[in-house]
């Protein structure tokens, strides 16, 4: 049934010049589930994320999100449609405070325009308060409340990744795309990250995850899709994937 899927990739193809980065990729992402996208480096996972979020335009094929076709939509429109994301190389606003970073995430949930902002700030006090409160709630959820007023750039990498997720969560997305959230984290931080992702699922937000840490992927995923050279080579439950010979061959290099 179509309504069980929040995201549908339909014969997606992306070429950079002569190089085919993503080839004829069809994939369904279940609503309310954690779906992981794994594959060797350079398999095209981040390209897929960029195709979904509008940073890249597919050469052919299309993406459907919540029953709606996301064709030629710019990234900010896709965010407004309900897809949040993080980046492989953490992209926090390092000059701004931790709290302000999350307040930026409330952008779509507030309305003040340039005229009111400059000329009539007293009329916006209520909205500013709401933005701040929502951001503080997010910080508590992530356990970053004590660092609220530090410059975001001064946080350790693990906290920066958490912050990036909190910022995307502030959008109140229906689907969250996490690009290697555990890379560069130590064992303890990775466990915390896994718990956080499970918590996000419990909030009824669907998660699409790209990750290299196989223990993490196998533990938290409901479904796993394996990509190699831009093609889907296997999909299934973590147990099925672990037993799949094509996958083992791809990872061990035949």
């Amino acid at each position, binding site marked *: 049934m179509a309504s069980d899927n929040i995201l549908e990739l339909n014969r997606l193809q992306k070429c950079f010049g002569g190089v085919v980065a993503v080839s004829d990729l069809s994939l369904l992402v279940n609503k309310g589930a954690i779906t992981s996208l794994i594959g060797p480096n350079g398999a095209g996972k981040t390209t897929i994320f960029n195709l979904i979020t509008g940073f890249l335009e597919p050469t052919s094929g299309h993406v459907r999100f919540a029953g709606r076709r996301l064709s030629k939509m710019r990234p900010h429109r896709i*965010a407004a449609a309900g897809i949040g994301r993080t980046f492989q190389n953490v992209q926090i606003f390092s*000059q701004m405070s931790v709290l302000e970073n999350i307040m*930026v995430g409330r952008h779509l949930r507030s309305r003040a*325009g340039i005229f009111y902002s400059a000329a009539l700030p007293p009329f916006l006090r209520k909205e500013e308060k709401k933005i701040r409160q929502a951001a503080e709630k997010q910080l508590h959820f992530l356990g970053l409340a004590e660092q609220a007023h530090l410059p975001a750039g001064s946080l350790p990498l693990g906290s920066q990744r958490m912050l990036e997720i909190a910022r995307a969560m502030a959008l109140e997305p229906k689907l969250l795309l996490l690009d290697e959230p555990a890379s560069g984290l130590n064992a303890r931080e990775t466990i915390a990250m896994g718990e956080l992702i499970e918590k996000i699922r419990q909030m009824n937000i669907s998660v699409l995850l790209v990750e290299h840490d196989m223990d993490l992927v196998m533990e938290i995923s409901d479904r796993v899709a394996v990509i190699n050279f831009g093609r889907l080579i296997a999909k299934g439950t973590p147990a099925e994937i672990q037993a799949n010979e094509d996958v083992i061959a791809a990872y061990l290099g035949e």
Partner: protein
Amino acid sequence: MKGRNSAGFLALIVAIIVTPSLVTNDYYLGTLIFAAFNCLACVGLCLLMGYAGQISIGHGAFVAIGAYTSGILTAKLAWSPWLAMVCAVLIVIVIAFCLGIPALRLKGHYLAMATLGFASIVHIVSVAAIDLTGGPAGIVGIPRLDLFGYALNSEKQYFYFSWSIVAIGVYLAFNLINSRVGRGLRAIHGSEDAAASLGISITAYKVQVFILSAVFASVSGSLYAHYVNYIDPGPFDVSHSVLLVTMVAVGGLHNIWGAFIGAVALSLLPEILSFLSDYLLVVGIHYQPDYDTLVYGGILLIIMLFLPEGIFAGISNSVGAVASSVRKLAGKKDDGLG
């Protein structure tokens, strides 16, 4: 506004109130009035350069459009100066919109190119469209402004008036920076991709800030026209646009106060240099106003090399450094005694 910025704003208000009683010479008061016009344009330009991360090498053209629209409508068509000023603002909004949309959709510094071309066009039109602009002869008989039927005749009155407008401009700029829109702008400056992924329309924000900064420039031009009562193309060539960018860069891109200080400092520099030239003559150097450009270039070079974040950040950083080393020294002393 909060904390240090509101303290700074208070200091600005006090300075505006006190200055005319300290500077009684009309000529120097006039210099400070000219500084106000540059200040207003630079505060707007700082929003664009420091917060939206875009450079305009054509803000002198928006100043010119403000000045010429006010001049033409009041001197030739006898409009009310206030109505003319609003009309100038509307024209500038339309032009900035048309210029900004194509240039700001693209990543990179296309706006700098577009505005540079635009500045040249405006200057050529102001020289050549004699029927409209009076050509090189300019427009004479631009009336002085009056405020609620009260004519701003003396230098002192115009000083208070123009610097009040600057204060309003500074106030608006600080409000903007500390708002939802300001956070959006700083986010764009931090990472365009991340900002877009949070639903911020980068093009829309850049265009809006570009328009706002052009409006500041236009008002500054209108105020200029009503102060000098006569305009010609001379002050509005491309080098004026470059000078405005220099002022912002010298003061410090990422801080409104930086742009403010840069604008005041470089506006007063020619006076300081002509004052110094008397002394230089004694040493045997025959200083001429033509050398001003050389001095400007030198100052910009020195600032970029040694204080890349501008005078304002440079000073506040070194004050911080001195303070912390004093604290360290004091700490050591305590240790020694203990």
